[in-house]
């Protein structure tokens, strides 16, 4: 591995700008070009938009009511199975209670996205507020926020979430609130360090010298410069929240039956997985694809907004 490659090439190449390099395309054009040529973003965004559309139009798309039980039709295999019971009436088969698996999967997308998005919003607000305050004010505020972050990190998330949900009782909104209150740590950590970096730049000092209010400086000078990092963390935390919800539901303390949650579907199917492996295969794959799409988006945003780390 040769060291300092890029530095030397850059110094050799940068000193000799050609006319084309000087009058190149605008930054906006470059960014757009980078976004559309980034495979991760393109794939991730396409899948995510598809799943979003499925979630929004669930009532139109689902062939059956996801809660409709019909014990005479239970455990039909999906259509690709070489079985007499496989029918287009239930393309992905039916579960133990004869509920249409495709419909449950479609409605499950709603739950995953809703929980992921709402928990991400709550944790984003908490974490960003703490992180920006710590990074901007420094000193004592920073110490206190750091302490809160450390304390939060030392609490085991899954265990505390399970305990709290079991004690408070579980509804969709309680699961969302508990997750939102538990996973703000990464927002706080990243926003804190991003703010610290921006805060020491000259234009922030210039704004202070002009007598701008703290709110104004944070909103107009700092936030626009850390929003890229915020988006990256937001996508990662949304994926995190979706996985946590699935895990909680899998353990029986998240979304409650008969609601269709993908984690719950895996949990309900696991007893029969040796005979009907598609019962866990289908919802698990859905979960994997959704989280993968969100992560690809997040990684992609990080790549295109920080080109110096990737050439």
């Amino acid at each position, binding site marked *: 591995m040769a060291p300092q490659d890029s530095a030397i090439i850059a110094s*050799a190449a940068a*000193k*000799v700008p050609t006319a084309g390099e000087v009058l190149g395309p605008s930054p906006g054009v470059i960014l757009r070009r980078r976004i559309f040529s980034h495979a991760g973003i393109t794939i991730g965004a396409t899948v995510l938009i598809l799943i979003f559309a499925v979630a929004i139009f669930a009532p139109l798309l689902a062939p059956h009511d996801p809660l409709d039980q019909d014990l005479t039709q239970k455990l039909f295999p999906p259509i690709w199975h070489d079985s007499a019971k496989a029918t287009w009436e239930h393309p992905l088969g039916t579960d133990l209670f004869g509920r249409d698996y495709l419909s449950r999967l479609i409605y499950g997308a709603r739950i995953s996205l809703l929980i992921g998005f709402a928990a991400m919003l709550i944790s984003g607000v908490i974490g960003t507020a703490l992180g920006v305050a710590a990074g901007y004010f420094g000193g004592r505020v920073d110490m206190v926020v750091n302490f809160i972050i450390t304390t939060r990190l030392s609490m085991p998330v899954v265990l505390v979430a399970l305990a709290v949900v079991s004690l408070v009782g579980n509804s969709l909104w309680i699961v969302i609130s508990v997750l939102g209150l538990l996973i703000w740590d990464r927002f706080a950590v990243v926003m804190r360090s991003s703010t610290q970096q921006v805060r020491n730049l000259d234009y922030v000092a210039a704004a202070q010298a002009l007598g701008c209010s703290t709110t104004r400086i944070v909103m107009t000078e700092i936030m626009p410069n850390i929003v890229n990092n915020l988006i990256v963390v937001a996508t990662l935390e949304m994926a995190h929240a979706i996985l946590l919800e699935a895990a909680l539901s899998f353990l029986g303390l998240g979304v409650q039956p008969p609601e269709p949650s993908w984690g719950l579907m895996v949990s309900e199917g696991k007893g029969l997985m040796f005979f009907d492996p598609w019962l866990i295969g289908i919802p698990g794959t859905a979960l994997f694809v959704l989280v993968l799409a969100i992560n690809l988006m997040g990684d992609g945003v990080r790549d295109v907004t920080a080109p110096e780390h990737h050439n």
Partner: protein
Amino acid sequence: MSNILEVENLVVDIPVSAGMLHPVQGISFSVGRGETLCIVGESGCGKSLTALSVMDLLPSSASRNADRLILDGEDILGVDERRMSDLRGDRMGMIFQEPMTSLNPAYTIGNQLEEALLRHRNVPRQEARDRAIYLLEKVGITAAASRLRQYPHQLSGGLRQRVMIAMTLMCGPDLIIADEPTTALDVTIQAQILLLLAELQKEFHMGLMLITHDLGIVARVADRVAVMYAGQIVESGTAEKVFGNPSHPYTQGLLDCIPIPGKTKRGAHLGSISGIVPSLVGDLSGCRFHDRCDYATPECTAADVDLKAGESTDHAYRCLLSPAQCAENAKRKVPA
């Protein structure tokens, strides 16, 4: 005087997104034992890459070619990495621009100094330590023995560069390549470090290849000078000849940029070279300096210009103008 290093027609190419970059285009030079060769030029003219080519430490994407690359009689052009790493640090050493980051933060000064000797010589650690202390004292570091236990972050930039110099001396090399060793240092420290290098070079009778863009330094320490511009040597010769009789318009321009106490009029404008360095991407032909040259003619762009002998044998320059015309231009440039 036998040559410790001979380089003939060295070419470096680097593929970049815009095409092929030609940072070094067929340069030749040699360094004699106990001789100081200064390579002068502005940033980006290929000085550093020339140095790294000799050490075979170029970036992996760069390709190096030459007709001859001889270190003390041994052809090092085609040797494998194994042999090359035997030579590096033992027969030739290199001092870099950035003393602040050139030492590993995780190890003590002593460890990094000793390591250089232990790699190439089968000696006990105590001997390596003694050698390190001896050399640290040589490069002007007091309380050398206790410095061995210190970490790089505890030392100032000037001290770190002294440590770097001591490190290259651990095996008693024949050739030292110093790539702008003082650029990152304070002005007062710069002179100390350079004089130290010059002294050590004499004392240990090594070849020194000093890369710099500071002509003041060159005038003081150089035996021979090579002026580089846009990947080529445009003028070379003994320091006396190049400074006494600068022939290439670029060299003349460079020298014109330096204020000379007593000569330069108070308040008068210093010389400057207008324009920017040309892009070295893609096919290149003609004189690289033509678009910035006051004496350029259509002929200059017609074909590549070769190095030709100046008025004396120890002097060569790359220009179509005759030695007499050059001397005439030089006179006009520097107002008496």
